[in-house]
């Protein structure tokens, strides 16, 4: 996790808020550093994490996690991390006999179905253990990323329904958190993606938006991060509802600074 980002969001692993949906989106840049931040943040906070990884392999996240001080392999072995590696398991649907509804069952369906099997997988992964005291703090669902589901033929409303059910189960019932990444297509007229992004924005409590600089690529400033706090409204009166910072991604950390005040350009 990045300590400077924790400071911006006014949170630490010990006092992470519960019951929240955080939306990560990126436009004209790569916002995956935010996914790595939240993955290591919640693992360090001793939460049970279900990670639906649709775009990268386990080893990719493992390597970045090592730089941020968490071992995904160890977390998976001790049962803290449930990792759905979609790149590997998606071939099982086609080459293995169907045993039970597979989380990625929608890949087999000709028409755009719903994501109920994926939701059942998440619910099963994060359900509290029967008997004994809870080993982990509140559950967390992390999805990287939802835009790829649109490319795989799922409709935007089906993805919104999936996140709705995840919110109802993970946030409201289990008092956990949901973090999801969506790409903003920007200029290209992708109505389904715009609908998904707007619909999720309305459901979210916190929106982190990483944008590329309007002037183009820069060596010392990699982009701009906009933070928008949404619900509930009035406690946020004590802090700013929205903040904008610029950032630079380094090998093991990300540094944030106010707009125009990068140390390299002063």
């Amino acid at each position: 996790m990045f300590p400077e980002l924790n400071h911006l969001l006014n949170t630490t692993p010990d006092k992470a808020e519960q019951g929240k949906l955080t939306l990560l989106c990126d436009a004209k840049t790569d916002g995956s550093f935010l996914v790595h931040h939240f993955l290591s943040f919640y693992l360090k906070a001793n939460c049970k994490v279900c990670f639906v990884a649709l775009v990268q392999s386990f080893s990719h996240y493992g390597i970045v996690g090592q730089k941020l001080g968490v071992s995904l392999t160890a977390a998976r072995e001790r049962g803290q991390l449930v990792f759905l590696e979609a790149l590997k398991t998606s071939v099982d649907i086609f080459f293995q006999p169907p045993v039970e509804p597979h989380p990625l069952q929608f890949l087999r369906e000709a028409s755009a179905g719903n994501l109920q099997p994926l939701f059942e997988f998440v619910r099963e992964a994060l359900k509290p253990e029967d008997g004994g005291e809870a080993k982990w703090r509140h559950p967390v669902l992390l999805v990287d990323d939802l835009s790829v589901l649109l490319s795989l033929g799922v409709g935007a409303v089906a993805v919104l329904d999936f996140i709705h059910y995840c919110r109802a189960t993970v946030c409201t019932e289990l008092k956990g958190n949901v973090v999801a990444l969506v790409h903003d297509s920007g200029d290209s007229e992708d109505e389904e993606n715009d609908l998904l992004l707007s619909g999720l924005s309305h459901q979210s409590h916190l929106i982190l938006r990483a944008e590329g600089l309007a002037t183009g690529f820069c060596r010392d400033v990699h982009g701009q991060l906009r933070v928008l706090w949404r619900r509930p409204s009035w406690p946020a009166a004590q802090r700013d509802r929205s903040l904008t910072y610029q950032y630079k991604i380094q090998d093991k950390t990300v540094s944030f600074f106010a707009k125009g005040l990068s140390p390299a350009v002063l």
Partner: protein
Amino acid sequence: MLESLVAFGGLVLLRDSIEWEGRDFLKALIKKSALCGKQIHVLGCEVSEEEFREGLDSGINSRVVYHDLFRDPLNWSKTGEAFPGGPLGALRTMCRLTDPRPVTVALDSLSWLLLHFPCSTVCQTLRALCHQDSCGGDRSPGERVNVLGLLHEELHAPGPLGALGSLAQIEVSLRGTMGQASAHILYRKPGHRPTYQTQWFSILPDFSLDLQEGPPLQSQPHPDSHTVLVDPTSHVTFNLHLSKKERETRDSLALPFQFSSEKQQALLRSGPSQASGHILYEPDAYDDLDLEDPDDDLDI
């Protein structure tokens, strides 16, 4: 302002955006309706009952009936706890309310319904909901049901937005600037011209409305603890400041295109009496001063 929104029957459309959320305003209207003695039925599709009731005091909450369609709207759990007929069934049930007391129906949200059902179905059901007195029942003819519908603008194309707008008696668009929220209200009374009103407001923690005159004239600089106070002018390689002598020289400089009194005098002096400005021309043999065709290009 709130009285005008909850008093009349018919559909009140609350259009909100990502930046300016409308649920708090909806709860403020619900509180006002409850204080006016109405029974409130909420079709809750987007937030849990606990979250919706948060902040409303017990007196208001006792008048609110929350139809929970948040936990399992599509009947995925198949436990039989889901509302029979789904959300549309729940909405149609509200069209046949037998409560003799005045009723307000709050839809949280219309956007959810529009995303899951065809626009025509939603509009027809809304119309039936608003015109319950004509459907019979125990309601007195003058008392129509007040329907408050929350709509997220960005999610819909202009077509459905226009269709819902034409059904609505009152349309409230929630916007804001410089941290101050505003409501732009359009009243549509049948037989009258539509009237507009803009009202700046803020919502207090107990969901009462604090009306304001306008946006703050000057945005207060927030004591931002995050910004590191760096002076950008401290390490530049060029001089940004002027000495006293340089400042005096700069102030006394006359700008080239400034019309001062000296220039005015100089121009006035150069009148027709000065011979050096006069042009003398002697036409030579080849000049053909034909007034009808001075350029000599007409084919006459």
